[in-house]
């Protein structure tokens, strides 16, 4: 008898492996899904690389720490005097003077001994990209590349935590609503109406006004709001389709209890859609975090949104692309990671929904 069970388990394991292999094959056929997977893997690599660099001592935390690090980058600037009228031979307009590697003598009231033509030793912040700082430093002398890594840690923790929580809640509530129907269903649907009625961004403002939001607080808030809101309705409609399948009826006839049917027959068949939903809601969670940090409402030390917020409050975002390393990396990182998760979701969609496949 026990031998039989063992054999059965062995068989099940093999079946599961085969299914996994088949799904992977289907997923890898989708070109965009693979691109998304590479993007997500790249950011995951960045997120894991930073602690590794600190532990092995390749990066000195005093210099490379994303929040309190500081690096002195020395520079010699030629002291010049800006002409009174433009255009001259060297400068086309007012904004071209002083050029790169030069400093206007009028700015040097702190060092009155210097004359035009001499060199002025100073520390420049923000410093452009160099060998020691791959993406330069920000206006406080902190390494931008290290900040990007820290930001991707925040994004992964927040995105995955809130998506798991949200999808967990909405899957359970959605299947319950579909399975029991009647009053339970009505209650759950009106509850999600209530959540959907509240404007999301102002609501988060209010919450951030009376609670200092850390990353995981925000993850819980976003997860619960997302899980109680519209996701329940979508999952419910899927569960309704599963509920009328013949195998649910046969399970009921053979005497399965309500909870057994719910958890063993309906839930597993809703799970693929829930997984898909989770991948897509990671995109939303990353975007929400960035928006809130961008508006300066979160109590966290560093994230991509805060990097953009700082570049905006320091006035670099309207300086064009002269300080591109302060503007582009953070914005593109948010965009690419969110896009990467979206593409993975699309690849999974093709695995779970046979009607979307090519043939």
């Amino acid at each position, binding site marked *: 008898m026990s031998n039989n069970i063992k054999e059965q388990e062995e068989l099940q394991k093999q079946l599961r492996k085969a299914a996994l292999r088949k799904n992977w094959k289907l997923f890898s056929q989708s070109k965009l899904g693979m*691109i998304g997977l590479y993007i997500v893997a790249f950011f995951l690599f960045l997120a894991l690389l930073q602690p590794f660099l600190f532990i092995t001592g390749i990066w000195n935390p005093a210099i490379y720490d994303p929040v309190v690090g500081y690096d002195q980058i020395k520079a010699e600037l030629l002291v010049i005097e800006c002409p009174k009228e433009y255009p001259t031979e060297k400068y086309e307009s007012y904004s071209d003077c002083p050029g790169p590697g030069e400093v206007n003598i009028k700015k040097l009231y702190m060092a009155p001994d210097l004359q035009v033509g001499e060199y002025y030793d100073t520390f420049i912040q923000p410093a452009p990209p160099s060998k020691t700082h791959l993406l330069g430093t920000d206006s406080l002398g902190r390494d931008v590349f290290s900040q990007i890594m820290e930001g991707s840690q925040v994004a992964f923790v927040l995105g995955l935590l809130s998506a798991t929580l949200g999808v967990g809640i909405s899957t359970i509530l959605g299947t319950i609503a579909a399975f029991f129907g*009647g009053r339970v269903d009505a209650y759950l649907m009106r509850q999600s109406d209530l959540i959907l009625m509240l404007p999301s*961004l102002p609501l988060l403002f209010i919450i951030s006004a*009376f609670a200092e939001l850390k990353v995981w607080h925000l993850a819980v808030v976003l997860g619960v709001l997302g899980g109680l809101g519209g996701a329940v309705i979508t999952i419910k409609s899927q569960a309704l389709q599963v509920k009328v399948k013949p195998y649910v009826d046969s399970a009921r006839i053979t005497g399965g209890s309500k909870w057994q049917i719910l958890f063993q027959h309906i839930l597993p068949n809703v799970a693929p859609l829930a997984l898909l939903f989770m991948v897509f809601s990671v995109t939303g969670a990353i975007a929400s975090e960035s*928006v809130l940090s961008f508006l300066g409402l979160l109590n966290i030390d560093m994230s991509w949104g805060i990097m953009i917020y700082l570049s905006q409050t320091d006035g670099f975002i309207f300086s*064009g692309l002269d300080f591109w390393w302060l503007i582009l990396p953070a914005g593109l990182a948010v965009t690419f990671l969110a896009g990467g998760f979206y593409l993975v979701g699309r690849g999974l*969609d093709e695995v779970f929904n046979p009607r979307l496949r090519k043939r």
Partner: protein
Amino acid sequence: MAEYIIRRTLQMIVVFFIFLVSSYLLFNAIPGNAFQNLLLNPDLPPDAYEKVLKTYGLDKPIMERVQLYVVNFFKGDFGYSYKYYPKTPIELIAERLPRTLMLFAIVNIVAFYTGFLVGKVLAWRRGSKSETWITVTSVFSYTVFYPWFALMMLWFFGYKMGWFPIGKFLYPEKWYDAPWDSDVIFVLMIKFTVIISVLQFMAYLLTRGIESLTQRRNIRFGSLIAIFIGSYLFWNTGDALTKKPYAADIAYHMILPVIVVTIVAFAGTALLTRTTMVEVIKEDYILTARAKGLSQKRIRDRHAARTALLPVVTSFIFTIVTIIDGSVLTETIFSWPGMGQLLLQSVLEEDIPVAMATFSFVGIFALIAHLVADISYSYLDPRIRIKSQG
């Protein structure tokens, strides 16, 4: 059906009541209140703060205030704004709402139309190189970090190129000696836009029955030209002629926000249309249409795209619900004085009557739209039946 609607309406009233009470409590849970800056003003007598609190009834216990607010709300009395004192929340909403609706109605219509076209083409060219590139671009614009993107566009077109104004609703210096309020001009613009769109839509509907493709196209093109001539005549005669420069000023300020939001918004529709189209193309009747020897374009536009339209339209209904909510960021970045900014400011400044009024406005809007969406589902798709649920 009637029974269902009645029951839903009763439930909606209960939900709305809970919504009203809980959001009032939520606003009062925020530490501080709208008048605390009076305490910092050394010129005011020390009891001014208490007096003001008493005037606005903020010294009463919280439960009493909730009761008062809810009772007054259902009587139709929303109180006065704390920040813009003599104005009531209704006046403020009436002033701000048209601006938001105008901006986002244009955006949504343009985005829906282009998104649907792009999605249609995407699904049809499945597997080709152009599909990959268009998909990558639409995914980029779908997931782009919106405030960042908007600021970059504002920098490029507003500052670097100088083509468009940097935010705001109008140039104040142009309006110093204007004989009209900006709202008068704006209402005229809204009326004009609505009439034009209705006319165009009518022309589209009337020509739908015409079977010949060239004839249909010619008539539609003719109607478009007629509308252009009509609007030219309208803006160059009588009263409208003097209003034209002011209307042009507002329109000029609208261009950049419309473009930016459209770029971000069209991708969602395009990707959704693509998914539904890909599913539809697998259906048997598409194969039948091919076997009949119909042209590719005809199969795409008449057979596949029509069926694929249903989920896209329903998602469009839900997009309309989120207009005001979604306008918060756009209006903050472009300093567009609409509902989103009103909502945000009132929340941040704890102007509770205005915040409550805007919140309940959004809430009622969302509730009714959900009901309409649920009912229209059952009309549009006979497979979905409203039975005992809900």
